[in-house]
């Protein structure tokens, strides 16, 4: 299948998700369940995307585990996104010389 068609579908769906409520929706959501569900979706998505995929992200499970460990520790201490993600890569890079 043409990659251009994939990109059009991706971009179209993503744009409509943003534009429809931004442009046309004026009321407040009142359903407690729906509000709670939407509140949890980002965390659930990010978690499901990260685990277990992160362990395969460097092509070497040992360097990936090292990078993941570094990211977890730095994130636990609330360091900025950019510091956490670059330190994870640096950790994976350096442990790549050992494993």
């Amino acid at each position, binding site marked *: 299948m043409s990659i251009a068609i994939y990109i059009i579908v991706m971009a179209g769906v993503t744009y409509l998700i943003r534009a429809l409520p931004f442009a046309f929706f004026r009321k407040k959501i009142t359903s407690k369940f729906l509000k709670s569900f939407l509140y949890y979706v980002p965390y659930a998505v990010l978690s499901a995307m990260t685990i277990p995929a992160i362990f395969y992200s460097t092509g070497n499970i040992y360097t990936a585990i090292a990078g993941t460990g570094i990211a977890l520790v730095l994130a636990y201490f609330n360091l900025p996104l950019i510091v956490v993600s670059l330190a994870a*890569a640096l950790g994976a890079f350096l442990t790549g010389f050992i494993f």
Partner: protein
Amino acid sequence: MEKKIQNDFLRGMFNGIPIFLGYLSVSFGFGIMAVSSGLSVFEAFMISLTNLTSAGQAQGVVVIASGGTLIEMALVQLVINIRYALMALSLSQKLDKKFTLPHRLLAAYGITDEIFALCSTKENILKPNYMYGVIAVSTFGWVLGTFLGGAAGTLLPANVTSALGIVLYGMFIAIIIPPVRQHKNILFVVGIAALFSVICKYLLPFISGGFAVIISAIIAAVLGALIFPQKDGENE
């Protein structure tokens, strides 16, 4: 920087500089990942320009690389990016009168986690030009990083590019962990999502990566909403 920049567009650009830097590095990782998955630099660049979203793009590339269907692609984007609908709703409550329908349709393009955070916290009333300033500087960082990452991916040594494959996931961890520390309900949701994602990967390998994320995320968010419903005003 106590003196407030009067020009809305310039103030937006100035406040958006940290987003620019963050996007530059994260999209560098995306560019590498996209090219190593078989896309051209131009295709990676176009995905970043038209989507402006990290998680959705990363999973979108996975769908493309695995030859998934367009339905799968649409559902993956819908589930991963549905949070933007909530942010758009929240932002729509504080728009300036200048925000006419054409402005809304244009600015909607730039609703991301970080831009939402900046636009919903730094301004009392959101004006179009301020939001455009933030979007302009952020988008520039996002597409520039994608281009550099995609181009460098073929130039850099293999051990560097493979290590950079973890950059986006590192950012996801940095987003998830601080709230997980503070809120047991979020810890619960994150744990359930990870558990089902692992089950799909190892016990149900016939489920493709995109659907595994959708199924895991929906189960976790539904369980979270049933067991830990949010109190009013808590999910701003």
